[in-house]
């Protein structure tokens, strides 16, 4: 046995080295995030800091009368308050709006000491203080007189298993819980659902269920559902087996429940939506962390049948990720470059197209993207809703900020997630940390002649 008495200055040395590491990360960041917005982002070399960049915004919520800020020509109001983690909004063909509220499933196993620390940071960023309302609920909001204010509110479904996406067709409401697509008989106008669902198809659930949000979209012909299934890790640290059928978009036959992988290599896809002009499926994808504050840009992309988008072996086309072993050159060669970069760590979770809405000219054709924001940089990025102008089904210009001021100082009042167009043609934004759904309408109060459901394709 050695006879070392542990010297106090060992502790001191450890503390000093910690501090100096942290100081390195505080260095001013000259990189302009605007270089990573658009079709051709600038990608710096990967960097691996000992302590990854980190800045967590504490959630403080919205005080009475406070709202996010929108540009001139638009008007923002609270559509529904006092919700429990609203993640997605979905408009039915009669104009009723479904708000899916959910919490992350519990029970992800702790595999490494790091997982405990990660869990603690997540709880700050999602606002875990005080009494929590019961979540995992689908609530129906009804604006009877189409004046932009909700007149009726009904909880349609409760005690779901971390739901996210919904779709409706043929008197059937499809709900993507984190482990299955459920089908409920539902006629438009109903304010309660009492019948039991049937499982259309199971989806990869727990116990490891890292990226747990499963979004849904209905194909324009109504035959298929598309379900997004995020990866089970940042960069396969739970093993490649855990990624089977994940980091992908599934195509599910509504009649039989048969499924196949429609596209893969998409680390955490959400916000599935069909472009009304090109009728192509689009998604927003959260890219990998810990390659530095300015890698890898999250993106919006059209999704090709059979397309492979790189994860985990490469990012943004053929940029190899050295963390994945063994390397797979054949997969890197196959990787498709995504369409439109949104810049790094914005955590894009929501996507909605504005064509056929009642929004004024600059916003009449394009995509709104809900950027949840994340803690993987030392300067906040995201925490806002941006608008990408489109022409003929393709992005045609620089993304611009539309709904901002979710962050105030170093605190988050809310965090935007899902995007929708309500029954009057106004933009809806689900704000999970702020427990609110925001409505952004034309300042002159113009509305569409009749409601259009999220899944409907006018003119088909």
């Amino acid at each position, binding site marked *: 046995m050695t006879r070392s008495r*542990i010297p106090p200055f060992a502790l001191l040395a450890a503390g000093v080295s910690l501090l100096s590491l942290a100081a390195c990360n505080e260095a001013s960041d000259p990189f302009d995030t605007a270089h990573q917005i658009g079709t051709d982002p600038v990608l710096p070399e990967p960097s691996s800091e000992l302590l990854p960049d980190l800045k967590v915004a504490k959630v403080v919520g919205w005080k009475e009368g406070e709202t996010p800020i929108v540009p001139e020509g638009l008007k923002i109001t609270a559509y529904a308050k006092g919700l429990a983690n609203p993640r997605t909004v979905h408009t039915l063909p009669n104009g009723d709006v479904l708000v899916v509220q959910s919490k992350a499933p519990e029970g992800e196993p702790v595999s490494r*000491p790091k997982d405990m620390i990660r869990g603690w940071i997540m709880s700050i960023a999602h606002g875990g203080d005080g009494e929590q309302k019961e979540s995992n609920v689908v609530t129906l909001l009804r604006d009877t007189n189409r004046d932009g204010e909700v007149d009726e509110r009904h909880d349609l479904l409760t005690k779901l298993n971390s739901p996210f996406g919904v779709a409706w067709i043929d008197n059937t409401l499809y709900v993507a819980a984190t482990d299955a697509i459920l089908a409920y008989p539902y006629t438009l106008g109903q304010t309660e659902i009492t019948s039991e669902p049937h499982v259309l198809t199971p989806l990869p659930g727990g116990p490891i269920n890292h990226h747990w949000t499963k979004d849904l979209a209905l194909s324009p012909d109504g035959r298929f559902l598309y379900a997004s299934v995020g990866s089970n890790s940042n960069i396969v640290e739970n093993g490649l087996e855990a990624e089977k059928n994940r980091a992908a978009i599934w195509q599910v036959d509504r009649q039989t429940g048969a499924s196949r992988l429609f596209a893969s290599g998409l680390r955490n896809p959400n916000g599935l939506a069909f472009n009304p002009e090109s009728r192509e499926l689009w998604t927003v994808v959260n890219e990998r962390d810990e390659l530095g504050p300015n890698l890898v840009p999250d993106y919006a992309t059209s999704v090709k049948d059979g397309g492979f988008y790189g994860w985990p072996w490469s990012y943004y086309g053929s940029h190899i990720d050295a*963390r994945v*072993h063994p390397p797979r050159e054949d997969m890197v060669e196959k990787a498709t470059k995504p369409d439109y970069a949104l810049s790094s760590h914005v955590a894009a979770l929501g996507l909605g197209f504005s064509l056929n809405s009642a929004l004024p000219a600059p916003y009449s054709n394009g995509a709104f993207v809900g950027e949840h924001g994340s803690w993987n940089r030392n300067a906040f990025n995201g925490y806002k809703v941006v608008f990408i102008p489109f022409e003929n089904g393709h992005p045609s210009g620089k993304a611009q900020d539309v709904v901002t001021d979710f962050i105030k100082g170093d605190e988050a009042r809310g965090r935007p997630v899902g995007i929708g167009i309500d029954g009057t043609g106004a933009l809806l934004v689900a704000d999970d940390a702020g427990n609110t759904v925001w409505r952004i309408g034309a300042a002159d109060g113009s509305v569409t002649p009749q409601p259009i459901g999220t899944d409907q394709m006018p003119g088909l």
Partner: protein
Amino acid sequence: MQTSRNYRPGYPLNRLFVPFPYVCFILVLATDIAFWQTANLMWQNFSAWLLFAGLLFSALSILAGLVDLIRASTRLQRPSLAEIIGFAIILALALVNSFVHAGDGWTAVVPLGLALSAATVFVIFLTLILGVRSQRTLNWRTP
């Protein structure tokens, strides 16, 4: 040793904890080599937990060492300056190594993590040799 008749040597508390980091950090080298050779993630997780446990017991060792400082009965059994410096270097290396191992994937071990694990083991053996060679060994069990 020049123990006086009324000097009763006490057992230094730090000795209860100091072996833990040594054992943990030596095993980290073994599990890192296993990961390097097999790419089985189990070994990477082992390394991360061993580093975590080693650092936890290092903290306990420091606390115990501070208690020993104020106990006159352990005065003759204090480690040499060389051992103290050796332990500080081991701790610093293991701390940096645990940050490297907290990364995701292959590069959390190969090559930097593996190199740090080997360097830590090298300094551990050096410190142990210095401890043995220091002529201040006290046979505390038999007065």
